[in-house]
């Protein structure tokens, strides 16, 4: 990597990911790869019924099987004296919070709900024993559809939640919005189902728990995006162990997309089983268990309307949503369809009146929680589909109607009607760039000519904004979060000038080891190769809140930049002392301190570090060593935005949708590593295209999961997708030290609307107004033929 290592220029360059050689050669160690002596293996018996009373459990045959150490049920956990709870970490006013115990006590509430635990000498025996446990179920009716679940007479998931309503939430001004509709020249209206998704991280969840009864310490290796949150929740709610006696370690983690944020029962069960048996206990989900237990995403039923004046200027937006919570309230589930959804309803538009009402609804399904984008893809889909429908009913071109309604570049900061205050933006800039690259005007001609020949081309825009890097902590707390949203960093310069960086974020594919080193290389002016980054161990780094919500660059990166700045400040003081100069006379360039005009007499950062460690000649009042810790709490969210454009051809004979081009023009602020940003955008688009064309978790009327394996759940394959085109505009974040925003979710947030808008555009000769996702060939064929 010669030529890539010079400190200052490293920020902004496409350095190859240093993580990859280990990952792609199989040297990296994931949780299930770890081996501890004398490990026992744990499996969990799961309910086959969406809803059933448990009359009794007979585990005697399983217990008698050679190699089985123990079989446990909920009563064993309760009798052991641990709290046994799986808590919700985001509270809304008047929310119904049902008990969620580590295993089902007397009722199962979704297919996959844990019923019993087997601990055995090996994996095979642990799985054999599951087949020898006999549960006497009394099956009851279940309900999976979030709207139907609220109807009178629907089966109740929890008796304490009438009509299955967990919470009834609203944002905006209903009266003002109703008035806007009363005076509207045009109204666009859509009924939208935002399809339920299954996360499909490549690595299934896993835990290896090692409880030491002598010291009382629990070491828990697990697939987590946020080791400190898991430590906190396991300590407080599940096992009651003192927080300082728990060490949660995230080895390599193979993707998460949100599914490894949440605190599930399974990892706590492995830890509890280790406490019971006095042995290390490993649990690894099968792919089937992944489908049956990892929190699903989306699952909204929405009615949305846009009011316009005669010129197509938006005057009001009204949204009514039923959002599935699943059987229990997962860790951050209540935030997803509320503060991560309703607050984004202004989109990129100067909307004078908005009202959004949301029912959070219990259903007999796997709990629903944050999945890549978390609320913002749902909001963006509502807004951007509705904008296209508004264009359709008003007869205004979709690009033009957006232009007429954008928040103007000189109108920032912009206070929306739904709480968020956008700090910066240049929406027309991104739109113009995208339209030019795609050749929008030419396309319309080409489209018209193609239609003459029975070829149906379509183009779809998604001019999106998103809010990520939730902050500041006080605001997030006032909205119900039982967590802070600041981030920690330690920058430790060793005596030789080499550097170790610790972050409270916890990467699982994002490339933090590379990008964080780039930040520090630029800040300290030391070679990139001399910097290592360590994350994912609650026993090593200060408390942090982990990696999700596109927060790791904006919040975690800013913490690192702040810590690096503190290091430079201290080094400057020492360098000034060594150079016998005043601090204010020193320049700091490429890692060297020198008096202005005398670069030959420099003290390099490694020189200073050595002196800081020797401590033979330090200025008065300066402590030895050279490191700094920062706890960075941002002033505001960050607001990435951009324009995505999809071009499709629809085959009228079969309904097949061919995605021909996909262009993303994103504004994620300053870019640390363009290649990694492109990679994030590519992956996000692929997942968003997956939602729009292929993926859907299907439950039948009785709440049985029909799409329970990859034979039925269509994760997009590489050959389904075109080579994406990416470009950027740069509007730096005005309030963080790096000027960076988030990029991890932009693709999943923007792309579903772009793709569906393109399909609906292609079908405009057939008068099609909307098709629900996933837009399968059959749905398109039906839209054409019916």
């Amino acid at each position: 990597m010669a030529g890539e290592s010079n400190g200052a220029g490293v920020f902004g360059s496409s350095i190859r990911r240093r993580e990859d050689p280990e990952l792609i050669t199989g040297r990296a160690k994931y949780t299930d790869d770890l081996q501890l002596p004398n490990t026992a293996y744990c499996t969990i018996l799961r309910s086959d019924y969406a809803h059933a009373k448990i009359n009794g459990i007979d585990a005697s045959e399983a217990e008698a099987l050679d190699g089985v150490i123990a079989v446990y049920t909920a009563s064993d956990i309760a009798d052991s004296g641990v709290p046994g709870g799986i808590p919700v970490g985001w509270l809304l006013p008047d929310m119904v919070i049902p008990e969620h115990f580590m295993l089902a006590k007397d009722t199962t509430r979704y297919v996959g709900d844990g019923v019993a635990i087997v601990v055995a000498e090996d994996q095979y025996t642990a799985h054999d024993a599951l087949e020898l446990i006999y549960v006497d179920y009394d099956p009851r009716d279940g309900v999976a559809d979030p709207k139907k679940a609220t109807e009178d007479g629907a089966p109740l998931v929890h008796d304490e939640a009438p009509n299955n309503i967990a919470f009834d939430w609203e944002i905006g001004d209903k009266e003002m919005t109703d008035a806007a509709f009363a005076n509207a020249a045009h109204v666009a209206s859509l009924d939208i189902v935002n399809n339920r998704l299954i996360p499909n991280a490549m690595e299934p969840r896993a835990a290896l728990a090692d409880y030491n009864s002598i010291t009382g310490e629990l070491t828990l290796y697990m697939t987590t995006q946020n080791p400190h949150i898991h430590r906190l929740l396991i300590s407080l709610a599940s096992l009651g162990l003192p927080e300082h006696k728990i060490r949660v370690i995230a080895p390599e983690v193979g993707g998460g997309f949100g599914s490894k944020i949440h605190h599930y029962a399974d990892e706590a069960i492995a830890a509890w089983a280790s406490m019971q048996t006095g042995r290390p206990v490993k649990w690894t989900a099968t792919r089937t268990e992944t489908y049956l237990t990892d929190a699903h995403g989306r699952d909204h039923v929405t009615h949305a309307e846009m009011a316009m004046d005669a010129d197509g200027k938006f005057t009001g937006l009204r949204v009514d949503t039923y959002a599935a919570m699943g059987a229990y309230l997962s860790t951050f589930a209540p935030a997803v369809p509320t503060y991560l959804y309703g607050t984004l309803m202004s989109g990129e538009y100067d909307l004078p009146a908005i009202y959004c009402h949301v029912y959070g609804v219990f259903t007999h399904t796997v709990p629903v929680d944050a999945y890549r984008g978390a609320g913002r893809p749902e909001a963006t889909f509502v807004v951007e589909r509705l904008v296209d429908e508004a264009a359709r009913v008003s007869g205004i071109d979709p690009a033009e109607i957006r232009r007429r309604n954008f928040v103007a570049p000189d109108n920032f900061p912009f206070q929306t009607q739904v709480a968020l205050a956008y700090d910066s933006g240049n929406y027309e800039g991104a739109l113009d760039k995208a339209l030019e690259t795609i050749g929008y005007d030419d396309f319309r001609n080409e489209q018209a000519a193609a239609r003459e020949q029975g070829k149906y081309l379509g183009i779809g825009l998604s001019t999106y904004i998103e809010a990520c890097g939730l902050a500041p902590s006080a605001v997030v707390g006032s909205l119900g979060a039982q967590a802070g949203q600041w981030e920690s960093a330690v920058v430790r310069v060793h005596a030789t000038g080499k550097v170790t960086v610790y972050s409270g974020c916890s990467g699982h594919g994002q490339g933090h080891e590379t990008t964080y080193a780039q930040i520090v290389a630029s800040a300290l002016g030391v070679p990139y190769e001399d910097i290592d980054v360590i994350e994912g161990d609650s026993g090593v780094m200060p408390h942090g809140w982990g990696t999700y919500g596109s927060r790791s660059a904006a919040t975690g990166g800013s913490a690192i930049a702040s810590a690096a700045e503190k290091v430079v400040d201290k080094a400057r003081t020492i360098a000034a002392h060594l150079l016998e100069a005043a601090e204010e006379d020193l320049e700091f360039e490429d890692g060297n301190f020198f008096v202005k005009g005398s670069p030959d007499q420099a003290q390099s950062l490694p020189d200073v570090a050595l002196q800081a460690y020797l401590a033979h000649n330090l200025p008065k009042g300066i402590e030895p060593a050279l490191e700094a810790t920062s706890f960075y709490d941002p002033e505001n969210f960050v607001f990435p935005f951009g324009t995505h454009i999809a071009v499709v051809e629809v085959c009228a004979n079969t309904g097949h949708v061919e995605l021909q081009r996909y262009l993303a023009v994103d504004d994620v602020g300053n870019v640390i590593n363009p290649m990694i940003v492109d990679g994030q955008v590519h992956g996000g688009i692929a997942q968003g295209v997956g939602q729009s064309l292929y993926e859907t978790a299907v439950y039948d009327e009785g709440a049985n999961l029909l799409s329970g394996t990859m034979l039925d759940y269509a994760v997009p394959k590489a050959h389904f997708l075109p080579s994406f085109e990416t470009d950027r505009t740069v509007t730096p974040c005005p309030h963080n030290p790096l000027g960076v925003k988030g990029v991890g979710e932009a693709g999943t947030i923007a792309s579903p609307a772009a793709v569906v808008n393109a399909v609906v555009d292609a079908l405009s000769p057939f008068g099609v107004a909307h098709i629900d996702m996933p837009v399968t060939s059959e749905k398109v064929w039906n839209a054409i033929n019916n």
Partner: protein
Amino acid sequence: MYPSKFDYHRPSSVQEAVQILSGNPDAKVLAGGHSLIPVMKLRLAAPAALVDIGRIGALQGISRSNGSLRIGACVTYHEIANSADVQAAAPALAEAAGQIGDRQVRYRGTIGGNLSHADPASDLPAAALALGATLHVTGPGGSRSVSASDFFVDLMMTALQPDEILTGVEVPVAQAGTGSAYAKWEHPASGYALCGAAAVVTRGAGGSCTGASLCFNGVSSTAVAATEVAAGLVGSDLSDAAIDSAVGNLSIPDATGDMFASAGYRQELAKVMGARALRTARDRA
């Protein structure tokens, strides 16, 4: 993904394999393993023993003689797709094999395993049916031959007895004037055929159609022959219009559906895919 316990046998001859099968009614034959092992890991199947026939030399190889092509049961999809003999003699079979799963699957999966498993959504059954393949089978009582049309009985059920092994597949070599093709509509989740069409057509000296066969995977509980379409083509000039007209009569009485494609939609797809396969076959004839 941990299967139940099973015994493992690795015979070195077909005879030995048949003997083991005869003595183990709950045994299953293991070839490439790409259908059997997943269902064992899901514990949907729990055979008491596996009889691994992968090392039996007699089940390997592709040979051509007397106007037919003989393909050993353990020949992989990859070998079939890339065999110049198969490409020339039975292009529909090479095309079908080349579209199964992904590269890894094609390097392991075998024609014998595929046809014996008789998954209606797999790609080879329709090709074997359309090409008029003959399946050679050996059991304790000796060997016998079964035509493809008699082999596929129902969903994952074949004419094979539990103690019989499919040893090879014989396909007639396409004569001058005969062309074949396979067109596949991939299931977005599984990659199996949501609708796969295998077509064979023969043109007489004057150019008109003297014989035709059109068979489908993925639309029914077994591979099915659309005999009414074939009958409608014979005597026609095989023009696009003639093909469209013949395919318009297609009807699959027991069409199956799932959440991606209902039975009714699959029928419509079958018309499109059938016409595609027929046109390509015609162009090769």
